[in-house]
């Protein structure tokens, strides 16, 4: 119990502190690199919630794939060299107000609703249960996602390649 609380607060602190660096740092490279501890903190939260397979996939895809993709694009475009340019636009005050209002609304909602405790227990071997679910009740979802992945693969290559003759 106490261990879980300690782990939760440490992970939440890591996630939120790195999230603040991602959102507000004037150095674009620092923002991108701070995305890694944020995603690893979220991975820890998933492990606390007994979702080990989702945690493994999160590290593999988010921290190992999407972060690398973002760093590549920053280094290939001017985001890496234009470090002296200001990174905030003129909507900073409105953005801060809106974000604070949204957060306050969600926190108030979460605090006031009496959430009911559900019935049943979590499966002990989550990869097996997830696999059975994907090939059972959620088969259409699985196949649809593979079509989306195929379209994304073809589309991203088509959009990003150099035009012939350029």
């Amino acid at each position, binding site marked *: 119990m106490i261990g879980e609380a300690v782990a939760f607060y440490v992970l*939440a602190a890591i996630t939120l502190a790195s999230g603040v660096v991602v959102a507000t740092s004037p150095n674009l490279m620092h923002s991108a690199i701070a995305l890694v501890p944020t995603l690893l903190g979220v991975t820890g939260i998933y492990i606390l919630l007994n979702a080990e397979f989702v945690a493994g996939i999160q590290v593999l*895809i*988010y921290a190992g794939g999407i972060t690398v*993709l*973002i760093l590549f694009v920053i280094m290939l475009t*001017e985001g890496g060299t234009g470090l002296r340019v200001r990174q905030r636009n003129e909507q900073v005050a409105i953005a801060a107000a809106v974000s604070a209002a949204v957060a306050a609304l969600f926190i108030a909602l979460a605090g006031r609703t009496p959430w*009911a405790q559900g019935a*049943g227990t979590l499966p002990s071997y989550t990869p097996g249960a997830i696999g059975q679910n994907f090939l059972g009740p959620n088969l259409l979802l699985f196949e649809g996602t593979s079509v989306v992945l195929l379209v994304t693969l073809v589309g991203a290559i088509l959009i990003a390649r150099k035009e012939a003759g350029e």
Partner: protein
Amino acid sequence: MITLTHYLVLSALLFALGLYAALSRRNAVAMLMGIELMLNAANINLVAFNKYAAPGAIQGQIFALIVITLAACEAAVGLALILAAYRRFETTYVDDLNLMKW
């Protein structure tokens, strides 16, 4: 000790950070990073509800997996678009990408 409300508060704060990044940054890649933070916050919500409110079903984790996959797709296509825009206009700052403004 740690109830559902703790996770919901964490996810709300992370969502607000992502929203702030998406609204107040000039670089297109930084806006995309804000969008990724918002998707992660939604995922934390899904998995937390799975554990506390409906532990018999595994739907929350399935949904979170699908969201991670689609976030990867969206990041790939978004970054490809940013690369193509950079090649054409020599800029990644969304203030300057205003060709379609009348």
